[in-house]
């Protein structure tokens, strides 16, 4: 039975870990489903969907951890995205930035969803450009980071539209089903 503040905190942590784990599991399964239907992962960004949804529902630290873990785990379990060339590390940076930004803006600053999602997307692209520039240096690739990001945004336009439509609907549906997951004051400290 939950009695004190410490127990309540542990319960909050446990629920958050469980929720992040299940959203991460969806982050592994959705790309498999999309690939089975023949829809490209780079076009529809199926891994991004549950991770960004989780960003709206868990604390920033957990959202960043989930964003880092999911691409690496998917790479280890399914072989995609590949670790070399460094697609998985770039995706990890991208997802961590996007989910972390969504969590900070939505749960921390309590901004409305229509501000949070574009904000998270812009932060994601800026961080992706920085990561691509660093990776190009490490792997001695002489392509421009800006060109890489521009190409990535152009290719994944259908996926971005899918996120803009599906993420708010999913978050609202989940919050209606589990009201406890709506943003609260202690999310900053959590």
């Amino acid at each position, binding site marked *: 039975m*939950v009695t004190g503040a410490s127990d309540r905190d542990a*319960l909050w942590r446990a629920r958050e870990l469980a929720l992040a784990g*299940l959203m991460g599991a*969806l982050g592994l*399964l959705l790309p498999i*489903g999309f690939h089975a239907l023949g829809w490209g992962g780079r076009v529809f960004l199926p891994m991004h969907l549950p991770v960004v949804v989780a960003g709206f529902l868990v604390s920033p630290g957990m959202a960043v951890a989930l964003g880092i*873990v999911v691409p690496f*785990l998917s790479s280890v379990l399914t072989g995609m995205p*590949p670790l070399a060339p460094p697609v998985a590390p770039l995706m990890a940076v991208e997802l961590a930035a996007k989910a972390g930004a969504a969590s900070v803006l939505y749960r921390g600053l309590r901004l409305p969803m229509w501000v949070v999602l574009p904000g998270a997307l812009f932060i994601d692209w800026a961080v992706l450009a920085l990561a691509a520039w660093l990776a190009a240096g490490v792997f001695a690739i002489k392509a421009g980071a800006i060109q890489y990001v521009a190409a990535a945004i152009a290719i994944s336009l259908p996926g971005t539209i899918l996120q803009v439509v599906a993420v708010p609907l999913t978050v609202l*549906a989940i919050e209606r089903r589990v009201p406890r997951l709506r943003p609260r004051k202690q999310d900053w400290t959590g």
Partner: protein
Amino acid sequence: MPHHIDLYVKRESALHRLDPRPKMLAAVGFIAAVLLAPIHPPWPMGALLLLLISTAAVARLPARLVCRRMLSLAVVIGMPFLLSRLGGEATRAAGEQFAARSLLVAAAFVVLMASTRADVLLAVAARLPLVSVFGQLGEFILRGADVLAEEVIRTNRAWALRAPSAALRVRLTGLTQASMSLIARAAARSERIGAAMVLRGFQYTLPMARPAPLPWSHLAAGLAFALLSLGIAGAAKWR
């Protein structure tokens, strides 16, 4: 317990029996060697490839399986390489470096993951000081993926039995509804799992089994592989 999503290939081999910790050490050494070794002259990359092929042979991994898994990377490695051939000398050299290094690192991961169960690797990662949070979350995701994969399989079977010849539009509507329902149910399920974890004594970290002692012979094997890889790269770089 086997997982629904895993690249592990069950075989009776020395590499499969090897403790995962020295295997990770060997993989880190090999990747460092690949990144350090020059691609001209080509002998260090050739020697590293030979080392990897010998390891795959020791693991008794079918060549067809390794090639098939490498083939899935053909686009991500092949396209930039082919595009680099259109550029100047520096671009062509960068393309060659990219392709050679990517192929060897990817092949090393194929061999590592085919000979080591993912949950065992995650259990090792959960004990490492800096990445323990990621390891624990990864273990949780793996369990969650098993649970959700079971649900997907059940839904798919029910769908195939009840509407085997439904139109694509109906199927897509069903798929969307099922996906939304799966996400909403996952959120509701996390409430129950969280409560169960606290009742079983969860205090910010997941309970971990005590690590098995690491045999010296296993550690020596992993260390020897890493040093041999680094030796090849070092010999080529500072010759």
